[in-house]
């Protein structure tokens, strides 16, 4: 069973959000993670447009037009949240002050290169703040479908699409698997419930090393 976007968000939230860390969520699929913050821990969500410590969506009658995240979602604030201008925000991101970045992906290579901003068939693309996040955070996570709309693997030997950053990805969460980028190569850590390692390998271009403790995801 391939994971739904919501299950992927829950999985990423559970695995990557730890007490005391600061996390930046990219647009698209990663933006869903903010709806599944683990209870009982303090995680600071950072957004490029200048907010640290935001929380889930407000009720309609609680919306403040000046409080949103970088995906353009209205958000609420945790006690202790702060606002700051964009150049300070990118100072934080590029300067390595943010612990974890979670971005969407078009392609990830076996060396951890990320392409996520332009499809060559389209003449124009939008980069937003993704290049800063990819370069700046201590740990970069990519969340994406395992294959693209045409059925092609998105985890590739070498990215064909223009890059966002070189060698930046540490772990990939897809609807089928959890894969780590290591010096030895791509390591298959977990498979989605009912999905076999062979099925994941058949949908992945580079060779996958099966982890010694490879297991099926517990959801």
């Amino acid at each position, binding site marked *: 069973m391939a994971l739904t976007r919501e299950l992927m968000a829950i999985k990423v939230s559970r695995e990557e959000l730890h007490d005391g860390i600061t996390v930046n969520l990219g647009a698209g699929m990663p933006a869903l993670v903010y709806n599944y913050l683990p209870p009982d821990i303090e995680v600071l969500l950072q957004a490029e447009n200048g907010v640290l410590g935001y929380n889930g969506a407000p009720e309609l009658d609680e919306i403040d037009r000046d409080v949103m995240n970088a995906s353009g*979602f209205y958000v609420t604030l945790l006690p202790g949240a702060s606002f700051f201008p964009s150049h300070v925000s990118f100072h934080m991101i590029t300067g390595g002050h943010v612990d974890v970045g979670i971005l969407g992906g078009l392609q990830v290579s076996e060396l951890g290169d990320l392409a996520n901003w332009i499809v060559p068939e389209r003449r124009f693309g939008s980069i937003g703040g993704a290049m800063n996040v990819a370069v700046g955070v201590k740990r970069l996570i990519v969340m994406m479908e395992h294959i693209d709309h045409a059925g092609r693997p998105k985890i590739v030997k070498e990215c064909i699409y223009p890059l966002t950053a070189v060698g930046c990805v540490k772990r990939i969460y897809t609807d089928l698997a959890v894969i780590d980028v290591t010096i030895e190569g791509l390591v298959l850590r977990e498979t989605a419930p009912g999905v076999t390692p062979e099925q994941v390998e058949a949908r992945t271009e580079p060779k996958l090393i099966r982890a010694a403790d490879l297991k099926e995801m517990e959801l």
Partner: protein
Amino acid sequence: MIDKVIASCDEAVADIFDGAIIAFGGFVGTGYAVNLIEALHRKGTKNITAICTMAAAGLLPLHEAKQIRKMITSFPVFYRPENMPQVYNPFEEQLLAGEAEVEICPQGTMVMKMWMGGGGYPAFYTPVGVGTPIANGKEIRVFDGKEYVLEQSLRADFTLIKAWKADRWGNLIYRKGASNFNVAFSTAANVTIVEVDELVELGELDPSFVHTPGIYVDRIVVKEAKYPEVKLIWTEKELPSEVTHLPHVGKIEPVT
């Protein structure tokens, strides 16, 4: 006596010339100088080079009248899954038709180009863009074994920004998350024009909490509309539940 207050938005933008480089603060649905942009639209200034984090959104009136010829931006286009609300973006149509051009710039690099430009630094090295098309044709230099790309700073002829409160000296404070690009952009223009919600007496702003000191500000206009409103950038389609809190969806937040 220092008094930077201008009577109307039209007066405040009266000398913005054809071909000007104009920086616009704002992000998605907040922090745009909506009424100054409307005044610029009325004035009809042509061949604008716009420095702004995204096309569409607050710049829509200028795109619709084809006043912006070039954008230096991180979001010129918005491609979204077919089942999601789509963004109304005439700038994309103009790009595809060859009527407009774009210089794509990572968001953090763009805001730093203005912040550095405002401070008199002509260029800076950044790790952002190394190994990507952004670095094409730019100098790469190694510091402590790591590669960096040389980016040139930017300055604008005019900057249109939005603040919450100002005094007549031009001291500004921004409301919550609406400061975004306004703070950096306010520093890097020959003429910085600010639209504010409220003008207060000198001394009313707590000096410890002034965000933009008045030295960066040339003209202040109190907003003219009852409720500044960025026009909708999403088309009216059935919305998936996950996007019900987007700020620019008309169904949820009707224009008042």
